[in-house]
């Protein structure tokens, strides 16, 4: 296809110009529809066990028919609510996890996008927690499969380094920070491997080469190990540490064009509102140069909220201090599940332009007392 103006394709959903030959819109992820191309082959999907927050205590089984998200009514077999007609959400479009009372996350398709390419995987045990979020690149097809595979692979690696796992990280804080940094890199490599595996499987099903438009995603993970937090990332999904007292901070540093501009001195508001702002400079995928996560650690001096989220949330509230205010507003009850759900609803209310994931952990570290001597 020649790239002259008459061949310019516009996305039917959001109106953005799409790359010639692109099968998905880079802005909103809608399939662009081939002009006489081959019919799409069968999809490769990951087994999505229904993630359930609270199994029914009486029967012990999960809510097989989740209620309508808009009005709470029953979803009919044809996929729409019997009261208000809102389409039922598939598991992939909206799921929630709560591995412990102090760790929870919500992953949602948002309003504008046709698919949910965000994914999330959480784990917790005692004072240990692992939170992983991956944001699929919407201009590459099947990134939703990739992001789900990546997040689960990374979480499993982190759990292996946790207190119940075979390679448990132990020792003084400094030794544990070093141990967890290694664990983070192992996790991101495993995630990258999972994406590559998914890409090969998909290519085999479709009969194409892996290098044509490979599925890709960002990676961000945070580990709470009793008294310390270690974060690792590739791309522009973020980790925020939001203490109850003291300054809020963004632990991760975006691997994005906007961040490079900010580092070069351009004001944050200008850099973030530019059309190229979201071009990511590091990611997971078959065409990624390397998949070693960059890491950062912090030793909290008091209790607070750890937030791991995708850009579907922070696009509406980028500054760390404002994010702290926002989370505090929704987290007055102290329940991370309610707070995460509220954050997702808030982001949808702002327009839901992208998929939204918010994972929260309530870190209840005793404030260190500095004694006056």
């Amino acid at each position, binding site marked *: 296809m020649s790239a002259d103006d008459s061949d310019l394709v516009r996305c*039917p*959903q*959001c*109106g953005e110009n799409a790359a010639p030959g692109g099968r998905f819109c880079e802005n909103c992820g809608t399939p662009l529809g081939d002009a006489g191309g081959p019919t799409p082959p069968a999809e490769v999907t990951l087994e999505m066990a229904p993630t359930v927050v609270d199994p029914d205590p009486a029967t012990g089984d999960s809510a097989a028919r989740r209620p309508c998200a808009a*009005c709470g009514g029953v979803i009919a077999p*044809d996929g*729409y*609510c019997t*009261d*208000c*007609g*809102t*389409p039922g959400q598939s598991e992939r479009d909206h799921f929630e996890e709560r591995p412990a009372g102090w760790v929870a996350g919500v992953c949602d398709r948002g*309003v*504008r996008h046709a698919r949910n390419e965000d994914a999330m995987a959480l784990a917790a045990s005692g004072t240990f927690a692992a939170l992983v979020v991956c944001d699929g690149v919407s201009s590459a097809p099947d990134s939703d499969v990739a992001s789900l595979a990546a997040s689960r692979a990374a979480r499993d690696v982190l759990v292996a380094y946790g207190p119940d796992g075979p390679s448990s990280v132990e020792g003084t804080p400094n030794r544990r920070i070093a141990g967890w940094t290694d664990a983070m890199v192992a996790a991101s490599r495993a995630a990258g491997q999972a994406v590559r595996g998914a890409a090969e499987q998909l290519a085999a099903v479709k009969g194409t080469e892996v290098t044509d438009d490979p599925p890709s995603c960002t990676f961000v993970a945070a580990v709470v190990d009793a008294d310390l937090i270690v974060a690792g990332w590739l791309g522009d999904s973020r980790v925020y540490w939001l203490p109850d007292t003291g300054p809020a901070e963004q632990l991760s540093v975006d691997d994005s064009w906007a961040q490079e501009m900010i580092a070069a001195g351009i004001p944050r508001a200008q850099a973030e509102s530019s059309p190229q702002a979201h071009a990511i400079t590091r990611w997971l995928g078959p065409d990624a140069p390397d998949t070693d996560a960059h890491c950062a650690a912090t030793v909290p001096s008091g209790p607070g909220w750890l937030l791991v989220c995708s850009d579907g949330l922070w696009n509406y509230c980028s500054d760390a201090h404002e994010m702290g205010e926002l989370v505090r507003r929704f987290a007055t009850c102290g329940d991370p599940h309610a707070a995460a759900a509220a954050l997702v609803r808030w982001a949808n209310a702002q327009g*839901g332009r992208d998929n939204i994931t918010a994972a929260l952990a309530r870190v209840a570290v005793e404030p260190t007392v500095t004694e006056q001597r």
Partner: protein
Amino acid sequence: MAEFSAEVFQNEFLSDGATDVHAVVSVTCTGAGAAGVTGAIPGGAGGVAEIIAVDTSGSMQGRNMEAAKHAAAVAVDQIPDGTLFAIIGGSHVATRIFPYPNARVPMVAMEPAARSEAKRAIATMAASGGTAISTWLRLADDLFATTPVAQKHLILLTDGKNESEPTMHLDRMIADVTGHFQCDARGVGDRWVVEELRKISTALLGTVDLIARPEDIAEDFAALVRKSMARGVAAVDLRVWAPQGSQVLFVKQVAPEVDDLTGRRTEVNPLTSAYPTGAWADETRDYHVAVRVAAKPVGSEQLAARVQVAVDGEVTAAGLVKAKWSDDSTLTARISPEVAHYTGQAELASAIQEGLAAKAAGDEATATVKLGRAVQLAAETGNDDATSRLRKIVEVENEEEGTVRLKRNTAKLDEMALDTASTKTTRVRRA
């Protein structure tokens, strides 16, 4: 077993803030079987009952009466053995011709002896008296009420106006018998009133038509009986579910004839309405459904209606009418070709009827405008039938722009033919 399928044609994309969703739902019945063979009521009487009501008023004397008697006999030949039937002669009073007035049974099942006796009774019919059609409907209703069959069908023939009773009587009687049986009404000659018979046939889920020459009545009756016998499914309801807070604007049958069902709605539950559609043979009928929903933000999706086919209270087929809000005008500006075609056909029907009414009232200006619009629509939608009938009434100067001149000496029959056929639609041509 009869099988129903429903196909939905629509443009589901709405612009930001738009609320009205239009869709054409095409319902097809296959395997309906023959009437009376597949009993629609499980365990009960299936079967059909046929009544033929022939005008025996004074005006029928002569050719009309002879032709009507001949037609009734032909119809009797078409009724298969086992079907309950009766013959009514109607003037300002209604008389049961067969079974004989002194017979103990109200209706008899067809068999060779009954067939020959019925024809003998028909031969004795004579024309005298006025015309009060409500009495014919009342007698038919009384006879039908004595049978437990699922499908009840009346063929009614008249040649003149319903002049022996006030309009109110007929209207009231129509309302009383609605839902009890289906009726196909026929008018012979040019002295009857299309609107009178159309009132009957629309309420009683049947057709109305003009028979120009008395000689043609027999063939028409035979076809009507055959059509009735081919309907294997007795009572089919069209059900429309619309979401909480929405409003069903209208439900119209648009093929093979235009028929507004909106007024016949009954409630199944607060969100679902049912519209009776009578008996079905192997056939396809198209419906135009319009629903108004509350606008949702761009990117949202909502189900605007579930259109279901219910036989004996059980839903056997369904189509989904969707709404998706988008800010891409190339998507939202499109009109589904099916919706556009049938909207045009419905407009064509009303343009014809209003134009003829204006012409009859002497308002030539309105008649010219309306019939001109009808010519334009008929050409656009490829309705050649309507075009040829229109050309008998108007002189067409420019088909595309709809400029016409009323013809001076139009035959009343031609006007009536146009009127009765106005509701017949052409189906949309599927690519």
